[in-house]
């Protein structure tokens, strides 16, 4: 049965679904892949929401491009990082047909611009410097940009879930490199900033949301001290987004977050969906990529 917060958020999401089946970042705005994917995951398995989930998937499925990637919104004809969410959705909805395979292939061949031959040549000639190791391949937000923590973490979740159905060397290699990249860019304080641990030699602090996402990507073997760092970051930034990701991430590693969202739903529908996922009884476990551990109560 829904807990009060979960029920409230799910009702809120159903009420604000766009006519095309998607959700905007805010009520009444155009549908985007990202909030639609999170809302679909948040409503998945809820009897009252079956129609909403089916409508959302119809829309998202129609947004897959010929190259196998997914576009972020109806009128943007470029495949982006949201493809990771698309592949994760396929595994949750058990849609293992062509959309799944072509999305998976897109993820396997997509890398940050720092992995391109031209960048590597310029880097070796001393003409380019990303300020961090470029040895391992991760995932960018979109074409023509470097790998960053958030798209890499989502891609790792997608590949690990996909690997259950499509095991193989190529997928294992990308998972391994993606994990190594996240480990490489870990901030000195034990968490994660958005991409690099330092700029021009000056250390950057970690953030709760990116630390939570990195942990989600690395959940099978959480680096020593990372969970403790996330616990210290929790509530440090007054951010509902950060709180929701921290709860989801902790759930994935069998921990319980101390964050509790306010009763009132946020205007931001993406955060509303993440709070539904993070709520007690919610679907945070859909991001789990390993057998569930018993949750510990803090």
């Amino acid at each position, binding site marked *: 049965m829904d807990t009060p917060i979960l029920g409230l958020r799910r009702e809120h999401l159903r009420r604000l679904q766009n006519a095309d089946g998607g959700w905007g970042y805010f009520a009444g705005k155009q549908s985007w892949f990202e909030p639609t994917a999170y809302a679909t995951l948040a409503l998945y398995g809820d009897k009252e929401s079956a129609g909403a989930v089916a409508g959302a998937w119809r829309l998202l499925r129609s947004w897959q491009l010929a190259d196998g990637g997914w576009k972020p919104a109806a*009128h943007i004809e470029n495949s982006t990082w949201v493809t990771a969410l698309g592949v994760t959705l396929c595994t949750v909805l058990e849609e293992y047909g062509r959309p799944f395979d072509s999305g998976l292939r897109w993820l396997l061949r997509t890398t940050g611009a720092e992995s391109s031959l031209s960048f590597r040549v310029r880097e070796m000639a001393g003409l380019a410097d990303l300020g961090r190791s470029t040895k391992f391949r991760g995932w960018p937000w979109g074409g023509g940009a470097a790998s960053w923590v958030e798209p890499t973490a989502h891609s790792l979740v997608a590949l690990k879930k996909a690997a259950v159905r499509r095991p193989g060397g190529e997928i294992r290699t990308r998972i391994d490199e993606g994990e190594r990249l996240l480990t490489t860019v870990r901030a000195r304080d034990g968490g994660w900033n958005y991409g690099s641990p330092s700029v021009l030699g000056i250390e950057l602090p970690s953030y709760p949301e990116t630390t939570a996402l990195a942990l989600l990507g690395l959940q099978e073997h959480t680096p020593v001290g990372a969970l403790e760092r996330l616990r210290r970051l929790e509530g440090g930034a007054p951010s509902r*987004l950060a709180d929701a990701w921290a709860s989801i991430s902790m759930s994935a590693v069998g921990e319980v977050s101390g964050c509790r969202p306010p009763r009132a739903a946020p205007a931001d529908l993406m955060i509303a969906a993440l709070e539904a996922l993070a709520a007690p009884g919610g679907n945070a476990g859909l991001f789990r990529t390993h057998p569930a551990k018993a949750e510990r109560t803090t």
Partner: protein
Amino acid sequence: MSSDVTRRMVLPVSAAAMLAGYAGITGKGTSDSKARWVAPQARSHVAIVRAESYSGDLAMRIREGIRECGLQVRGKTILLKPNLVEFDSSTAINTDVALVAAALDVFRSLGAADVRIGEGPGHRRDTYDLAEQAGYRGGIARFDDLFTDLNRDDVSEMHGFADEPSMFFPNTALKADLIVSLPKMKTHHWAGATLSMKNLFGLVPGSVYGWPKNKLHWIGIDRSIFELNRNFRRTFAIVDGVIGMEGNGPIQGTPKKCGALVMGPDLAAVDATCCRIMGIDPEKLEYLRMAAAIGNVAESRIEQRGEKISAVRTNFELSPNFKKVRL
């Protein structure tokens, strides 16, 4: 929203943008856009007004600057674009809420048809909580109704941005008759200084390009600053130099009191003036060298109004990699 509605929305946006002078939205390529790179024929007016603190009458100061620059806003839709970067409210990272609130009052009182506030922070995604922490929600009445998260607004396509086939920008910015850039006066470890021109990075939607907007770094930070300002031409700047940031800006630097607001319709001229106030040679910053194609950077091409530069000049500590640009 249906694709039908999207199409109906985009067409008037494109038309409005053409009328408003957005160079790239016409659907023409970069080479065609280059034909419209026109630096001002006349000297640019830049007003410097003293503002010793945020508790003073900032509205009066802004009015003074607007009057000096001859800006007319009656009947226009205006987008105020402050610089919201980080949750840390103990330092001078974000444009002070008092300045944004004062600008809102001034533009309304001058007869603007509509005044909105919009920002698309570069790396923190939770924009409303960021605004809360910066005091915007408490300090500006009905803030949530006035504010648009430009990272996650509805977007339309623009052609002619650098060498990209197209770029997407928020409709709130594309539809505005005037974008008022309200940056903090700060040093910047990649660009030397971050002022009214760099502040337009916040118009690039994270929903398409991510957090941070790393694509702009690969296009080139200086080039991207130039391209944004070449494409968004109906602009005015009010730079928050009451307390700026020196050293390792734009985030990890230290507060620096300057006690001035710098205003004008030519953002290149405003930034060049700010640099001279900060003790930076603007002609040694790459983005301002590029900006000379669309605005006035040379001191001889800028008509200073209000205070003289020498009256408010205070050398900002520079990032180590920009020591050579000291004026």
